[in-house]
């Protein structure tokens, strides 16, 4: 019988997630070269995989699903809009575009129940043929920002801004239809500006509460807001914004 590898115990710690970054990388490199430890990892992984099943069940809040799906549907829409491009097989690296947005970072927004996700992501829409020889891939650069929606106005409302190649769209769900004689108006707050500027992005929503509107260029814009305004829009907001997104 072969002697136990001196890393045998570290394998357990590794599978439980108890190694810090450098230790973990070191062990991974070792496992790649040590058949005995590879076998150990395969055997003990069963236990690590079973451990999450032993916790007391707690149901996820429905609002979490709503926020997540608002982002997912908005991104899916952008991708299906990219269909014409996606059909064209091009080598992925050649399609990679420079992206002008700031690096990924969590965004802070005061008083919002919403979780915010600001990301610059490259979607790979790919298909590989059976022989594995040809690979079709299109990379679509998309950034999505979850906006906060004031619960008093729309308790189940969600709003997501999707930016694709500098073109931004606001997509909303679960909003009430604007009161008679009113329309929703989008405002943009430029970095360093004291007051938001009006836009011609005026919209309503379907009876199901969903709607979408294209936004003017959001370059240099810090915040996007939405208020209810008299039909035709206003030059200055006449009500408090009920949708807020920090870009």
């Amino acid at each position: 019988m072969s002697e136990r590898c001196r890393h045998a115990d570290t394998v357990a710690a590794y599978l439980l997630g108890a190694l810090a970054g450098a230790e973990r990388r070191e062990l991974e490199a070792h496992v790649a070269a040590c058949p005995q430890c590879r076998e150990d990892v395969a055997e003990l992984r069963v236990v690590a995989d079973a451990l999450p099943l032993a916790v007391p069940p707690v149901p996820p809040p429905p609002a979490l699903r709503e926020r997540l799906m608002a982002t997912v549907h908005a991104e899916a829409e952008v991708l299906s809009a990219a269909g014409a491009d996606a059909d064209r097989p091009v080598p992925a690296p050649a399609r990679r575009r420079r992206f002008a947005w700031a690096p990924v970072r969590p965004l802070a927004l005061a008083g919002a129940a919403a979780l915010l996700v600001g990301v610059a992501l490259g979607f790979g829409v790919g298909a590989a043929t059976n022989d594995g020889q040809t690979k079709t891939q299109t990379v679509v650069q998309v950034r999505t920002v979850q906006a906060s929606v004031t619960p008093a106005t729309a308790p189940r409302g969600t709003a997501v801004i999707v930016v694709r190649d500098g073109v931004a769209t606001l997509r909303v769900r679960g909003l009430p239809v604007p009161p008679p004689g009113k329309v929703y108006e989008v405002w943009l707050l430029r970095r360093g500006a004291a007051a938001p500027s009006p836009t011609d992005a005026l919209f309503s929503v379907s009876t199901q509460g969903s709607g979408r509107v294209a936004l003017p260029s959001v370059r240099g814009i810090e915040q996007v807001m939405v208020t209810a305004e008299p039909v035709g829009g206003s030059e200055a907001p006449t009500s408090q914004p009920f949708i807020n997104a920090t870009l």
Partner: protein
Amino acid sequence: MPSRRDSHRPSYRDLADEDLMQLVQRAEAAAFEVVYDRHAGAAFSLAYRMCGARQLAEEVVQEAFLSIWRSGARYDRRRGSVRTWVLGITHHRAIDALRRGVVQDRHRASDEGLEERFEASERTDVEVARREEALEVRGALDDLPDDQRRAIELAYYGGFTQSEIAEMLGVPIGTVKGRMRLGMEKMRDRLAPAEVLP
């Protein structure tokens, strides 16, 4: 002759997880919704157990599922079930969150009472089998000698590193690793015949 059913939307709920993941790779949101509905409960329970705070658990699960949505292509069925994969991603995200120091009072997280027990509205076969599986894993863990169980729980659910655990327990790192190893081996022997449900 095409059946009338063809005029209906295909029901994603009839598909296996592995097939759904192929659709997720093609950015089909409806397929992703089914994957979420199947596994978000387990993912949230794990995140809540680890973080001990609802808000942070929500952030962890949201991050985990967004990364699944955006990188569905990385799922490899040869490495295990979708459920295992989802829970693995959730575990990593929770550990990242804990190590970023988001939770100040981490010692409480693993011991906090969880009063919000979830009663499944539907007692499907899968649900029943999952409960049995949970009981079995819990039983295997509870039957370990205390020092082994503690080391495993602090690592897996607490998100602590081996050095942190050694310091907390006042024993050398080698001892902590040995306890984890022994505990995991005992659990493996007991769980070996059982299969993780899809």
